[in-house]
């Protein structure tokens, strides 16, 4: 079984994100970049499927990002992925979902695959679109926000649970398929020390846009960001105090009913 995992390098979830001086994006200096949180579930699910099916199964990581993204790729290889394609091109900065999907479709088109796993969204632009657009371009089905993935014994089908409002939706899908992964799908393994050792020898195939046959950035020019806005400052908190707790609670209930009008 050939499995592809899509990877993105994003600011650490704990990082403080500030708008740059020009107001055209975020300040990157001092921000730690890591593997996108949800992509870790994708890597783990890929490795689980590889282990389950066995034989000549293989997990290939596909990552689009700057040269510095090799550390994220290397971490995925240390977790157990077999090899990687790294699409890096100086002309690519903050590509939109169509640009990313078009380039990835081309890169993936050159690979064999049965399943593509990716994170449910990247925690930088939070679009959650690439996997759907990619699915359409590759003409395969998609399942978004998976929390359980079960491969059929003959490895031609899968049953996937995805989280929806108020329940879990079960989806039957044929393979090949692209599945976006949510927290809860699995418990991503650590990159073990032997894994880190082995990762050094694994191949990362680096590709530029020209290598993939693009003479210019595809899929762009669809939207523009007009403004970057910080979060509105929180209002003053009104502390409800009283000698006895029940009195404070009664006052709170009055405020919620009469002032805030929410109950």
């Amino acid at each position, binding site marked *: 079984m050939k499995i592809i995992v899509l990877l993105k390098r994003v600011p650490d979830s704990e990082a403080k994100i500030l708008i740059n001086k020009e107001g055209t994006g975020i300040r990157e200096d001092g921000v730690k970049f890591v593997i996108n949180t949800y992509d870790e579930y994708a890597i783990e699910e890929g490795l689980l499927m590889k282990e389950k099916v066995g034989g000549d199964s293989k997990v290939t990581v596909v990552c689009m990002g700057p040269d510095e993204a090799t550390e994220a790729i290397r971490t995925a290889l240390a977790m157990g992925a077999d090899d990687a394609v790294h699409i890096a091109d100086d002309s690519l900065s903050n590509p939109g979902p169509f640009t990313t999907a078009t380039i990835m479709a081309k890169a993936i088109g050159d690979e064999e695959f049965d399943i593509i796993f990716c994170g449910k969204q990247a925690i930088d632009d939070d679009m959650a679109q690439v996997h759907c657009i990619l699915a359409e371009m590759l003409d395969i089905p998609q399942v978004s926000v998976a929390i359980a993935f079960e491969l059929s014994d003959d490895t031609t089908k899968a049953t996937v649970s995805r989280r929806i409002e108020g329940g879990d939706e079960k989806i039957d899908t044929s393979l090949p398929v692209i599945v976006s992964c949510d927290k809860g799908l699995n418990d991503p393994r650590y990159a073990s*020390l032997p894994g880190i*050792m082995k990762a050094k020898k694994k191949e990362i195939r680096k590709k530029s846009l020209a290598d993939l046959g693009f003479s210019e950035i595809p899929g762009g020019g669809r939207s523009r960001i007009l403004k970057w806005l910080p979060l509105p400052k929180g209002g003053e908190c009104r502390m409800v105090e009283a000698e006895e707790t029940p009195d404070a609670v009664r006052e709170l209930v009055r405020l919620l009913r009469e002032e805030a009008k929410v109950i």
Partner: protein
Amino acid sequence: MCIELTEEERMIQKTARDFARKDIAAVVEESNRNGVFQDDIYRKLSELGFMGMTMPEEYGGVGFGNLCLVLALEEISRVCPSTAIAVSVHNSLTNHIIFRWGSGDLKKKYLPRMTSGEAIGVYALTEPNAGSDVAAVRMSAVRDGNEYVLNGSKILISTGDKAGVIIVIACTDPEKRTRHLTAFAVEPDFPGFSIGKIEHKMGMKASTTVELVFEDCRVPASNVIGKEGRGMQIALGSLDGGRIGIAAQSLGIAQTALDEAVLFARERQQFGKRIVDFQATRWKIADMATNIEAARLLVYRAARLRDAGRACSKEVSMAKLFASRIANEAVYDALQIHGGVGYTEEFKIERFFRDARVLEIYEGTSEIQRIVISKKILEEYEQMYLA
């Protein structure tokens, strides 16, 4: 010498950090409150390769250097300093001694079991009248055919009750001046071995400290490490590794002290403002952070020197002396910033305050480090004048 970490070193650091913050953190309160050595944590650490990280692949290790071990110990100590003790002793003393001085057979017999974590390595040197003074070891080992018979006891032995392999330094010939000691690899099920008193300590409670009792304990002669009479050389030759481990542990404790102090000072209000906005707090934070940075440079550099195969006893002692000192200052100041609640078990700093004290004691007291450093310095000056 560059102190910037390589990609590989950052990855090792990240694995150690993630594991400590998730798996160790989940049990840290319980294990330190009830004095529980977490077998499960060591099993997982072994699976991730941490129990053989500096050993070559042929013995089931990963072949990383001392700096990688330092990074791992620092991250583990940020969450649970006691957990780092067994990892440090196992890697920097036991594995190292068997690998460096043991016979080929002994390496094949023990290293695979140790790198896989099946057997936890323990180091037994200290006696009631010997410790910093290695030469004073009096536990006796008498040759009897193909065996040695060990008699006496070792005290304050970390993780002694969890041992798979114990390196014991004993006296084989009281008459010889420097060749009177011999190192043995002892297994806990050898006849005549038993666990004595279990200590109740001030801190480091998730690591056990016990007395080991040897009553006509019979050890095969093939379990002599190196040759008979090499014990002193082995004990002195493995000091550096053990000390770097404690220096790394100190970094972790100091860093957590700073983290906790800043976190607390930003939230706690007194006299209408956050205490982080008082200059007295700011100065403490600046001093702590500067000391930690300086200590980290010393420790990482000492580890890099050791990895390069250079003589580094002076640098290692400086790193251990300084890092253990500033760790104690950091927990002191951090607890002071916490005020009264810092003295309660509700806050992490109380545990780190207790854990820090031993840093200046074990693996060579601060006084011993100063002796090593000054001796080396004076030697350097003498060489200058001679030249």
